[in-house]
């Protein structure tokens, strides 16, 4: 197994074996991922979704690696910044318990697509993700 799933989505927990289940919020999932990335675990997925609406989801599932490697400063910045952005976006929002099941379904479907994309690629090495300044090796 080359990846693990950090999730607070019960339907993901019930469908996969390689799960780090967080009994908590979306932000708790981000914080757990942050802790893992600080300890050298690879971040496979980008921590935030691609639409504002999914940032309001109570559930989030994120792929990470399985082994501790050299600490990746870019990935640390990426996850830290994602947590800050997440807080800005959601600070005033009410939760939507009536839609929890739908969010769980979409979160799981997006996770499935992500796993598929990851398996298609079979990247053996630690990602040296370079985005903008937050993520870039300063070279």
């Amino acid at each position, binding site marked *: 197994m080359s990846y693990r799933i950090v999730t607070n989505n019960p339907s993901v927990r019930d469908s996969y074996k390689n799960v780090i289940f967080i009994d908590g919020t979306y932000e708790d999932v981000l914080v757990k991922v942050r802790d893992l990335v600080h300890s050298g675990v690879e971040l496979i997925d980008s921590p935030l979704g691609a639409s504002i*609406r*999914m940032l309001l989801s109570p559930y989030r599932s994120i*792929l990470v690696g399985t082994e501790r490697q050299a600490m990746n400063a870019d990935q640390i910045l990426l996850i830290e910044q994602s947590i800050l952005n997440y807080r800005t976006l959601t600070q005033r929002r009410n939760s939507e318990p009536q839609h929890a099941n739908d969010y769980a379904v979409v979160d799981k479907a997006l996770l499935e697509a992500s796993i598929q994309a990851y398996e298609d690629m079979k990247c053996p090495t630690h990602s040296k993700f370079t985005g903008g300044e937050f993520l870039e090796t300063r070279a």
Partner: protein
Amino acid sequence: MKLELRKIQIKDVVFGDKMEVNGGVLTINKDQVVAKLMEDHRVKEIKIDLAKPGEKTRIIPVKDCIEPRVKIEGEGKGFPGVTGKMVPLGDGKVNVLDGAAVVTIGDIVGFQEGVVDMWGEGAKWTPFSKTFNIVVDIIPVEGLEPHVHEETVRLAGLKAAEVIGEAGRYAEPTNVEVFEMGNHAEESAKYPNLPKVLYVEMLISQGLLHDGYIYGVNSQKILPTLIHPNEELDGAVISGNCVAACDKITTYQHQNNSAILDLYAEHGKTINFLGVILTPELTTLEGKFRTCDYTAKLCTMMGADGVIVSEEGYGNPDSDLLMICKRLEKAGVKTVLITDECSGWDGMSQPLADTTKEAVAVVSAGNVSHVVTLEPADKVIGSAKAISTLAGGWDGSLSEDGSIKCELNAVIGATSEIGYHNCTVKLY
């Protein structure tokens, strides 16, 4: 390639026994549209309604908008690879019901927003308040799994646009727009001194309700690909993105991609427009690497001097946008980005989820967290449930007179990142 978009200006839309356009009035035979859409055994019921500019009507939750058209000369019926036989697009003559839009609604999941208000404050924020909208509510049979449900709704909308487009087959156009471009060798010989420009259109490509399709191919599975601008204007790109109301690119906006149109207008005058690169926005970091490297490589391979890059969505695609920019600028290609921003209610937060110093030329299409007030509607087409979702965004978002405070985020096309609308951001 030569494409003629023959615009038939629609001034009103009514229900009737025929399908026709007469003196700018579009008559729709409702039964005929319903019968066509009911051919899909996954559809249980179809409801069709009309919403006209200025009426106190609210449409919610909007899934997609599609421009009704009919090809009267050349290959390609409907949307090849999706609703029609596979043929290359971009050549021929198309009759366009200009000013009309098929707007599909339906709860695929409960948390969808996607408002179009036809009047008042709300109308200012969406380009689809100015079109005569034929609203198609698609109710599927029970027990469909979400992927199938989404596909059912998507196909029904495209088919509705196709059937209604037929109404314009024999109508006389009010004006004809011609899009013609030879191959690169020919165009470069014609305009040897004009700078070469490419347009990179990013598409959310991340799974259920977050997809885009090119000739029916899910963009999740592609490398960035080069496409002739005429192909997109002729219906090669379809939206399957249903959640980012303010900045998703609807099918209508692909058919009328404003970045393509504005670049085309300069072709042969100030620039040599080379074409469009469609780039998927993936979720994995390695995937982002691959697509961004590949996109920049296509641009340099083509010898572009300048590139416009448009984003779709907010969040992780910000990284793709800036990674592409960085690679292009480092390769000496002048780059302009179009994005929207999420700078919080007060506009004081950092606008993007990422940053790069190479992004020196950026067009902002608005702050998705900007709060607007929508007055109570006389008529709601769609779902009361979606209204309550919208109204329950935060404490105090629903006031006593029934008006709703919502973020631009919920309004279809408000902060279009292909630059389809007029919103921008100013520093105060």
